[in-house]
């Protein structure tokens, strides 16, 4: 009898702590995600009257849409550029600030994280100013070396403008991954480094033989995370800096989704781009996990 009522009390407690959060989560996260899959099967301008079920036609249309191919290319360009840029620099900083005995290490670590506390909107505006053709830093700097004032429209080329978005994206990402890698390096037992030092190993040897193999898991997580956040979120930097232009040359999947849905009211088509982003990020996760696991075996 007594154990029965205490069991009831326990269940009431569990239910009252679990259910509110769960209902909330279902309404504002699970439901929209599922609904996103559902909408991708419709031709829909946002009004309820003319919502027409079209099956997979949106995806067929996507396949024949040259802009989406451009966008996918740009997305993966940013993924590759960011993974290389961020990982190389962040790893270097993480090692330098933990293993090199620099006096300012603590201070620099705090400073390097600053871009990560800024809104991407703020970062976009700051970099727009760097690239500004008339009053920007870049042209101003180049003008120091030329007779005539340089007035290159850095964000106006119809090709390669996407390259201009890479520096802000890398600049903004480094601090976060550096902190992760620093934490991983600090978990490596000092005795390993000491032993290798007795054997006469230098910094480079230690880096290759000890640091990289032992932080590889964290590097893997970081690479996957960069890929995910890029496919999911490069929309903002693109939208603030180029709005996908000129002539759709810097369009990424996210910005194209936004443009299709919220500016041209092709909500079904927009939703199908969302599904595409989901599918591509899942596939890329699996592929990367394979590739990176292979790497560990070689190093190990």
């Amino acid at each position, binding site marked *: 009898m007594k154990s029965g009522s205490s069991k009831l009390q326990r269940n009431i407690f569990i239910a009252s702590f679990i259910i509110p959060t769960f209902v909330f989560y279902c309404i504002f996260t699970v*439901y929209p995600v599922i609904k996103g*899959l559902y909408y991708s099967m419709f031709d829909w301008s946002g009004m309820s009257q003319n919502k027409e079920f079209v099956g997979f036609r949106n995806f067929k249309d996507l396949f024949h849409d040259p802009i989406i191919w451009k966008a996918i290319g740009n997305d993966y360009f940013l993924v590759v550029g960011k993974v290389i840029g961020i990982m190389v620099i962040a790893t270097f900083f993480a090692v330098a600030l933990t293993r090199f005995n*620099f006096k300012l290490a603590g201070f620099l670590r705090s400073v390097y994280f600053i871009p990560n*506390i800024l*809104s991407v909107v703020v970062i976009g505006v700051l970099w727009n100013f760097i690239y500004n053709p008339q009053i920007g830093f870049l042209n101003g700097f180049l003008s120091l070396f030329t007779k005539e004032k340089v007035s290159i429209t850095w964000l106006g080329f119809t090709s390669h403008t996407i390259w201009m978005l890479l520096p802000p994206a890398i600049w903004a990402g480094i601090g976060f991954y550096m902190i992760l890698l620093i934490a991983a390096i600090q978990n490596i037992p000092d005795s390993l480094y000491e032993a290798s030092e007795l054997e006469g190993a230098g910094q480079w040897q230690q880096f290759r033989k000890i640091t990289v193999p032992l932080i590889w898991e964290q590097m893997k997580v970081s690479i996957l995370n960069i890929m*995910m956040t890029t496919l999911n979120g490069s929309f903002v930097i693109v939208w603030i800096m180029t709005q996908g232009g000129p002539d759709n040359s810097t369009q990424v999947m996210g910005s194209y989704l936004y443009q299709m849905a919220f500016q041209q009211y092709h909500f079904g088509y927009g939703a199908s781009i969302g599904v595409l982003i989901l599918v591509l*990020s899942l596939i890329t996760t699996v592929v990367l996990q394979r590739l990176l696991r292979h790497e560990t075996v070689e190093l190990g």
Partner: protein
Amino acid sequence: MNVGIRNPVAKGFFYLLLLIWAVSVIYPLIWTLLDSLKDNEQFFIHAPWSLPDFPLLWSNFSYVWSKYNFNTYFVNSLVVTVGSTLLGLILSAMTAYVLARYKFRGSNFLYLLYIASMMIPFILALIPLFFLMNSMHLINTKLGLILVYSSSLLAFGIFVLVGFFKSLPKELEESATIDGASHFGTFFRIMLPLSQPGLITVAIINVLNIWNEYVVGTIIVNDPTQYTLPIEIAVMQQEMQYRTEWGPLFAALLVTIVPVLIMYILFQRKIASGITAGAVK
């Protein structure tokens, strides 16, 4: 023991690289301050790195504050950030505690369901969220933003707090139960106060994320009286094509940056431990 770098040339070179990067990070903040004190003319005549002329135009700040209505946007950002951080924190702490301490059918599945959303690109939910908010009459409301934001905070909060609650010794609850405390009493009087460090860490990371959020904001809010700071900054910079007010734009950036910068200076250790805890998957 750590020998550092022996070769003085290499050491100098590495130091130089590190300092260059430090400058590249700090300098934009300094130039934001300097440029927020200039008028248009100075932007077009002088180099972008030149110091502002005297008298310094502090009036740019009062100008964006009242003429550009940054007083409103600032308060909106504040309300939305505090509201969603608190709501998200309460909801994730309750679930995290139960998931960490009670075994019941489906508890593992529930945990995975929350964690899985960290793997799903949120942008997929953007279109349905707009229509959901619309049908609930929450478009252009701070409440709408708070609800969506706090839901987006759950996965991270639950993930970190489950780990935190698991790290607390079990004896605490056992002795509380012996003393006759109810499940609720144990949670509110013992576990919640003890988990303060974890809660604060999660709260700080959440505050940063929400204060800076743009995508969901721009979808759900298009009434200028409800804008948050990032939404207005984006709008303001687009308007710069038609009316050039560079000084005020930089003043506006500073108004947006300073609160998070202060938070960062106060809580940097917490922030570092928060992102480390959130990323170990």
